[in-house]
């Protein structure tokens, strides 16, 4: 079931570039990355593309296929009509390096700004105890493969370069939520999520959830709960009143605000 696939691949660097046409033979069961590799091996040896595991587990081959943010290794050719031309461009939110490769350092800078997990001492026997139901929410977020497609599709930075310094992006809201829901963490990161990470910039239009290849419910399970936690801290009259008259949620005991 081999056929000739027409592709348009973005070639170029920061000085400029354009969509270049290629025709390459592909066969049943292949993914877009296979087609690109064949172009590379037979027609354009210097075609730059970032990839690693080719199994949807490492999150390296993020790009845009027909305008949609996707992992190249998880985009099957069978999803397209054989006569359709497939257009592949680099992620359009990050500075381009060359061809399909972008400079994703924005994400690594944001990772560095986030205060790490701070556990209390271990139990007397040197182990830690946590209930499965208490770690499950965090485990969903830790499925994240850091492909940065959510960061790429988020219009807050995609359409507004000037927001980049003040906005951590969906991937790191996941991380804030993970730590805030961690049964052992001793930090209260709610102020930080609102301030330094800029969670208020998010207008929950859910594109991050739409593009997540791990199907993490970023908006519903991480960002909105985190916004609600911020509201607990800053905008809830009942919580404020409760604190004033000494009725508190003991669940947050032992945490100190960052």
């Amino acid at each position, binding site marked *: 079931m081999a056929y000739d696939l027409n592709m348009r691949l973005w070639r170029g660097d920061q000085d400029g570039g354009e969509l270049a046409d290629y025709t390459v033979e592909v066969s049943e069961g292949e993914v877009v990355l296979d087609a690109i590799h064949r172009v590379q091996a037979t027609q354009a040896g210097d075609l730059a593309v970032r990839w690693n595991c080719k199994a949807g587990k490492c999150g390296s081959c993020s790009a845009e296929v027909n*305008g*949609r943010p996707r992992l190249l290794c998880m985009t099957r050719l069978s999803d397209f009509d054989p006569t359709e031309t497939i257009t592949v461009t680099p992620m359009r939110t990050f500075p381009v390096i060359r061809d399909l490769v972008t400079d994703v350092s924005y994400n690594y800078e944001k990772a560095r700004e986030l205060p790490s997990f701070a556990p209390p001492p271990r139990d007397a026997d040197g182990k830690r105890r946590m209930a499965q139901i208490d770690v499950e929410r965090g485990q969903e977020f830790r499925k994240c493969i850091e492909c940065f497609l959510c960061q790429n599709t988020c219009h807050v930075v995609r359409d*507004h370069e000037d927001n980049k310094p003040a906005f951590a992006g969906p991937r790191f809201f996941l991380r804030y939520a993970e730590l805030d*829901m961690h049964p052992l963490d001793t930090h209260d990161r709610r102020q930080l999520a609102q301030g330094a990470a800029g969670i208020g910039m998010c207008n929950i239009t859910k594109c991050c959830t739409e593009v997540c290849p791990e199907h993490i419910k970023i908006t519903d399970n991480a960002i909105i709960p985190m916004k609600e936690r911020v*509201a607990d801290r*800053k905008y809830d009259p009942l919580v404020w009143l409760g604190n004033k008259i000494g009725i508190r949620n003991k669940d947050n005991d032992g945490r100190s605000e960052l």
Partner: protein
Amino acid sequence: MASTDAGVTGPTRASIDDKTLRTDRWWIYPLTTFVVFTAFVVYATIRAFMGRDYYAAPYLSPFYSPCLGDCVEGASDFGQPFGWFPLSAALIILIFPLGFRLTCYYYRKAYYRAFWLSPPACAVAEPHKGYSGETRFPLILQNIHRWFWYTAVLVALVLSFDTVLAFRNEDKEWGHMGLGTLLMLVNIVFIWLYTLSCHSCRHIVGGRLRHFSKHPVRYRMWTWVSRLNTRHAAYAWISLFSVAIVDFYVYLLATGTIDDVRFF
């Protein structure tokens, strides 16, 4: 500040002129939302300002419930503390369900996309130059969604009461049911589903906890609300239609355009 070349066509990005290269019909969702929401807003505004044809015993339009102004006889089950209010009684209470829906996490997504085009769809460039999200007035008020949720629960309770009253006939005798009762019943079910599937509700019942294991009952409630929450958008749409349908049905009865279909 924002410059014109700050987005996908900015100087460091891969140079591509198109605002999007999406080939699917991504505009269907925002367009549909725009048309339907606009239609609803127009309809609801007209009906809310009309100030009449909202009661046809035993049915009270949800737009006017509870009827706290200078309402027609039989419509006010909770007195008329705002009897002095010169305008339509709907305007007194509509702010609550309206505020609940306006600050709802689903509706926000829908209208930011469809009305603000911010963004119109994923990976489609938005037309605005600057963007500050929900960090400033007035959008920072989205944070008070839970306040509206508290009132939305009260409103839902009142509408439940109205639905119970709809099991009477025109002469307030119990044990009857008509098409209006059925419509109100369907409506109140979806109103509750919409209200309980709310993200703030999910947070309040258990989501705010860090240790589910220490609060088994709240954990159970949280899992239940979480399941409903996955269909929050669907309930938002369905309840929007159901509210309008009940109101329109009452309108048709009140104006005498049709007669109620009585089952028993």
